[in-house]
């Protein structure tokens, strides 16, 4: 029932919670991500620099090793005399020296002294010089001559001096002088693999190290074959050849260059920050996962919570709908314990009250209808009508035309008053006029036997009373009191106000009530006409104004004597109507 309207509140709760969590995540993630990324990048750069220094240190160890070896060799006496080509020939001693040095450094492939006159000595026992190649054409030779005794380092190259051997080496060459004359060249070859091993230790997914020689050629590159063959290109333009450690960033690559003064080599570390991003795409996946997880959790929690909230509301709503359709028995049975439950309680109290009010209203309407009917019935009671009409006939027969007119006019006014006024409330004056007209007719019929007196203060004539409440009482007094009386009958209708209440008393000196009937007040047990009349009036007053108003009957029973009042015969029965004092 009413399914189409349900869930609006729940949906907004659900989507609000989801919106909140998603926006929190959406804000949190980029912030966290960028912070993490920048920390990662900073760490990476500092790690790279540290690694670079480490590599530099290792390489410098080899470089300085070569330099100190060359220093040792240059100053060696045997070498000096060998270079001077003086007798006796020290070449075997020099070879021994070279072999000793090579023995301490297994990474040295060749130690060769090439004399300008073509003689040579090396650490190898049986070594031939490659006859097909003039080493004087090689750059290591030319560079050494230019450097005039300072050690010069080559980049990676094939050693083609030694016959039959083509080793990949790093060469240190140094021009040797004897008596100020160029007398030879010292060539120290370092196993290239050594350098490659140092550098390859630093290679990982996100970066690598390469070395550029003083001549701009590659000393080492982890993918040098790919670089040489043109499959891979290296950004040599990002290499800086200056003191210290310098970083250049381009296209997400960080090129950190470190120049080694001893060798003139530049060690370059390449760090791929794109790789960093791809690492953090794992983080994105993780984050999306976490985000979804929390979204689901939030969804479930808010679903349950909103259900707890909206279910009673929907229940209440359903009850209201039911009530709206006219079912005044609709009750909201809310089991949860919160404000909505209180609301339900209030609703229940309200419906109860409304139900009672409606019932009361219905009852009043019913009573009114009955009283009107009864009043009408009373007026047009055939007996009353026949008697009245016969009285009129009789009076017209004896020619008392004035009385005929008077009686007919009173009868007419009586009928008009009964039927004309739709309002429940009328002025006391209207009610009194009605009673007066009624009494005019009755008085003509009963002649001197019936006396009627009004004792109403002028000021009270405009107060409001329920219609048709006095006449039934007067009629009662006539038919049950005066009619059976052997003597003069008197009916007094009086009214007075006291403490915002209006008291209307109808007194008679008739025969009085039976004791049984009196005891039965205020609800008359007997169902005869008078009983219905009094009960009707009493109920109408109570329904209209509340239980504190109603009818009070005082009657001295028939056997007892009536005490006299102010020298007049006292009244036996007094019916008092209590109403609220209402002016217009």
């Amino acid at each position, binding site marked *: 029932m009413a399914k189409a309207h349900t869930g609006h509140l729940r949906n907004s709760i659900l989507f609000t919670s989801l919106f909140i969590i998603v926006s929190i995540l959406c804000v949190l993630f980029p912030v966290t991500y960028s912070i993490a990324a920048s920390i990662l990048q900073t760490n990476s750069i500092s790690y790279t620099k540290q690694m670079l220094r480490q590599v530099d240190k290792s390489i410098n160890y080899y470089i300085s090793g070569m330099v100190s070896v060359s220093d040792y060799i240059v100053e060696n006496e045997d070498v000096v005399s060998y270079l001077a080509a003086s007798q006796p020939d020290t070449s075997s001693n020099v070879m021994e020296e070279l072999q000793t040095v090579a023995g301490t450094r297994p990474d040295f492939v060749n130690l060769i002294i090439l004399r300008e006159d073509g003689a040579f000595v090396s650490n190898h026992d049986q070594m031939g010089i*490659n006859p*097909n*190649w003039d080493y004087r054409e*090689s750059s290591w030779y030319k560079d050494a001559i230019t450097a005039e005794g300072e050690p010069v380092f080559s980049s990676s*190259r*094939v050693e*083609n001096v030694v016959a*039959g051997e*083509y080793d*990949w080496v790093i060469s240190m060459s140094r021009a040797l002088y004897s008596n100020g004359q160029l007398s030879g060249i010292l060539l120290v070859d370092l196993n*290239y*693999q050594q350098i*490659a091993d140092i550098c390859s230790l630093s290679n990982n997914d996100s970066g690598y190290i390469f070395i550029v020689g003083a001549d701009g*050629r590659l000393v080492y590159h982890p*993918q*040098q*074959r*790919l670089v*040489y*063959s*043109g*499959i891979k290109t290296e950004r040599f333009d990002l290499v800086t050849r200056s003191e210290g450690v310098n970083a250049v960033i381009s296209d997400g690559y960080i090129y950190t260059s470190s120049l080694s003064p001893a060798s003139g080599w530049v060690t370059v570390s390449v760090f791929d920050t794109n790789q960093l991003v791809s690492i953090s*795409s*794992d983080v*994105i*996946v993780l984050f*999306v*996962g976490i985000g*979804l*997880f929390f*979204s*689901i959790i939030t*969804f*479930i929690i808010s*679903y349950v919570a909103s259900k707890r909230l909206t279910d009673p509301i929907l229940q209440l709503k359903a009850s209201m709908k039911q009530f709206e359709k006219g079912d005044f028995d609709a009750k909201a049975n809310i089991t949860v314990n919160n404000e909505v439950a209180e609301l339900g309680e209030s609703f229940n109290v309200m419906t109860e009250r409304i139900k009672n009010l409606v019932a009361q209203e219905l009852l009043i309407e019913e009573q009114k209808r009955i009283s009107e009917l009864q009043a009408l019935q009373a007026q047009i009671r055939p007996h009353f009508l026949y008697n009245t009409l016969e009285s009129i006939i009789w009076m017209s027969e004896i020619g008392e035309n004035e009385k005929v007119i008077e009686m007919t006019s009173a009868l007419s006014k009586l009928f008009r008053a009964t039927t004309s006024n739709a309002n429940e409330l009328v002025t006391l004056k209207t009610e009194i006029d009605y009673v007066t007209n009624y009494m005019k007719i009755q008085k003509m019929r009963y002649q001197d036997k019936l006396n009627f007196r009004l004792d109403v203060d002028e000021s009270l004539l405009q107060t409001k009373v329920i219609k048709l409440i006095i006449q039934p009482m007067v009629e009662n007094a006539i038919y049950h009191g005066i009619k059976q009386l052997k003597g003069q009958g008197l009916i007094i209708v009086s009214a007075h106000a006291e403490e915002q209440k209006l008291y209307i008393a109808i007194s008679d000196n008739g025969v009085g009530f039976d004791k049984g009937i009196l005891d039965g007040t205020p609800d008359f047990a007997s169902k005869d006409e008078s009983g219905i009349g009094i009960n009707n009036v009493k109920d109408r007053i109570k329904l209209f104004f509340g239980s504190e108003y109603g009818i009070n009957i005082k009657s001295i029973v028939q056997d007892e004597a009536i005490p006299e009042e102010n020298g007049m015969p006292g009244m036996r029965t007094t019916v008092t109507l209590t109403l609220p004092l209402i002016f217009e």
Partner: protein
Amino acid sequence: MKHVNFISRKGKKFVKILLLVIMISVSVGLVTYTAVMKIPSSLNKGVSKIIVIGKTNQDLAFWLSLRDGISVAANEYGVTYEYWGPDTESDIDKQISLVYKAIEEKPDAIILAATDYERLAQPAQAIIDAGIPLVTMDSNVYANNVQIGSCFVATDNVQAGVKAGEEMKSLLPDGRKVAVISHQIGTTSSRDRDTGVRQGLGTDINILPTVDSAGSEDKAFELADKILKDPEIGGIVCLNEYSTIGAARAIIGAGLSGKVLLVGFDSSPSLNTYLEEGCLNATVIQRPFNMGYVSVVNAVAVLNGKKVDPFYDTGSILVTKGTMYLEENEKLLFPFT
């Protein structure tokens, strides 16, 4: 009313559970999808196996360097590979049987260097028919003049031949004859280089009919020895590594080093020595490392459903004694660790 309520409450619970299941499966699916999308290639890498069928399983410099390239690329792209090959390049039958054996192993891709472009056409077609991606290298296979593999990685052999021919032409004294020794007449590398050499020599030079060493150094030696008997011979062009070595041996043996010109193909330690000595005037070197490397890269690309160019030219360089120690040539001539 109460009964109806009970049912609808049960129904709501069912909807709730259904919703939960849907949400969870959607999220799990999303995460998985993202993860898979991010590492599809690496996922494929893990399982991919490539069988490489070369022309020979001998430790020849060219093939060693090529296998080196394969190894580096396989490492880089996370694929496993096996290298197969007949003992000699002339053992075409053996290579055909290897192709069928490879098909049975159901690898993810096959890389083939065909010893004979006609006879390997049918086995190559069988690879394609088995649904296995085929990349050819060094020498191609054709069916009705249409390349069978999805990609051919090789030296532009006609171009390489032209370089050798032009070098020979520039060095050759007037009026002398030139001989051409091929290595395997049925293979495209041999045929195309022959075409290129003749193109490079031009029409003015008397070129003897091409003789085939059939994948044997000794055969090349014998052929060269026979050729050198002709006093008018001015130069020999050899179309691969060991035919060049065979011819060089014959020239040195005849004492004609430097007198009869020799332009060869490829490099090896002994060829480098011949180059230094001057017996070998020039050699056209290919990039076997690149060939192996690019073949694997392209095979992986085909596996990942990417489009690759039908031909990848790995290029060639003519090296003489004067240029052999230049940085770019040094690395190609000498095996690099």
